[in-house]
């Protein structure tokens, strides 16, 4: 992908700049440490894993370094850089972090430095033994005048994002880890939601009942029919319970002489052989919550209940 942003070469003696829009920057070797190795690894991520050990003793231990690894012919090229230092330097030259889109390294485009590139009055960028280096301009021969024109065509494809790495509360690794966990749960929730959407057993049972009883599909009809039969059921059960209650009161010495069951009440006359039996009957009737009244000058009882 071709970049459309301007490319700015950054070197230690550069003057202060004033930017109106964000730019890509290319760092000279003054801002990174270069090492080339022939390693038996196939992929850049494998090479990157061993990058810190390659620079043992070459870098300041107190500082934190990042690494860029790429292949150049048969060799792996390792670049170690300190983002904090680079950011501070850029800031001192008027280039704020927000104005830097991508950071490139001169070594990435070693093939493009076909001639020396002037870095101010005193220095120049040249290629020596396939490595881009900064040399004093005085060291250049007469036929090696710094004539190279530097522009955005020097932009390589792969760069480092300064904005994403510094000022961020989370590292890219942490961000991807969180994102992974969140997305996993999101997928699980969606899957569960879809599963609930698919539960149909109750619907199928209802449908089968509707097919068997098409007249009861309307809830109004259903309610009407239900109320009608519920009332009948309740009333008739109460009537039968009433008769059952009265029949439970018949025991030795008690005779039923009259029983009436109507829509609203049930009533019975009982004759007892003695006052004791009559008392026992009365107690039993009251236990069943029935209304008891005595017939004068006899042991007879009238027992009644409401439906």
């Amino acid at each position, binding site marked *: 992908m071709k970049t459309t942003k301007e490319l700015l070469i950054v070197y230690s003696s550069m003057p202060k700049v004033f930017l109106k829009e964000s730019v890509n920057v290319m760092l000279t070797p003054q801002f990174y440490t270069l090492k080339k190795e022939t390693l038996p690894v196939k992929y850049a991520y494998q090479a990157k894993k061993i990058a810190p050990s390659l620079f043992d003793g070459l870098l300041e231990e107190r500082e934190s370094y990042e690494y860029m690894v790429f292949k150049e012919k048969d060799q792996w090229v390792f670049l170690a850089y300190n983002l904090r230092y680079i950011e501070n330097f850029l800031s001192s030259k008027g280039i704020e972090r927000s104005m830097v889109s991508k950071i490139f390294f001169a070594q990435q485009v070693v093939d493009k430095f076909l001639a020396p590139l002037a870095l101010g009055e005193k220095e120049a960028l040249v290629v020596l033994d396939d490595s881009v280096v900064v040399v004093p301009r005085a060291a250049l021969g007469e036929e090696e005048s710094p004539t190279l024109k530097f522009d955005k065509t020097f932009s390589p494809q792969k760069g480092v994002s300064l904005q994403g790495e510094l000022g961020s509360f989370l590292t890219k690794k942490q961000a991807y880890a969180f994102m992974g966990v969140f997305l996993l749960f999101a997928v699980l929730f969606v899957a569960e939601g879809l599963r609930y959407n698919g539960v149909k057993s109750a619907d199928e049972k209802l449908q089968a009942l509707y097919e068997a009883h098409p007249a009861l599909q309307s*809830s109004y009809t259903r309610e009407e029919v239900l109320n009608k039969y519920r009332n009948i059921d309740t009333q*008739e059960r109460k009537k039968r319970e009433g008769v059952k209650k009265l029949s439970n009161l018949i025991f030795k010495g008690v005779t039923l002489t009259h*029983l009436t069951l109507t829509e609203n009440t049930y009533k019975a006359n009982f004759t007892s052989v003695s006052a004791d039996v009559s008392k026992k009957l009365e107690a039993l009737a009251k236990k069943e919550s029935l209304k008891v009244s005595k017939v004068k000058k006899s042991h007879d009882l009238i027992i009644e209940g409401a439906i």
Partner: protein
Amino acid sequence: MSWKQYQNEIIVLAALFLLLFSYMYKHNEVTSRSEHVKTVQNSIEELEEVVALKKIWADKKISKKIESLQTLVPSNKVKWQKKSKKLTVNYTDLDANELNKLTTKILNLPVSITLFEVKKSGSNYNVELKCKW
């Protein structure tokens, strides 16, 4: 401030929003589904109750079953009057056993009893039954 400066946080936030939306989706599905299931269950219960009640109280064979009240006791003791879906029947001179059998039968029939009267006459009983279905 550039948004790019916080692109990692933005990625996490976007994923978090996605998580929240998917949770809300799941929650809505579960809620609406359980409400729907509840409604359907109610309808099923209602329907089953209607069917069960109709089976008892709107039994088409009840007219036939009623006839057994006529044959349960000797015919000379029965005065039978059946009109459409209404029955008036008088029993006379029933002994205690016949009364018990008759009462049990009447109470087990799915009919609406409008009057059930038992009168003791000497050692026997007279019964009047009015019912409809």
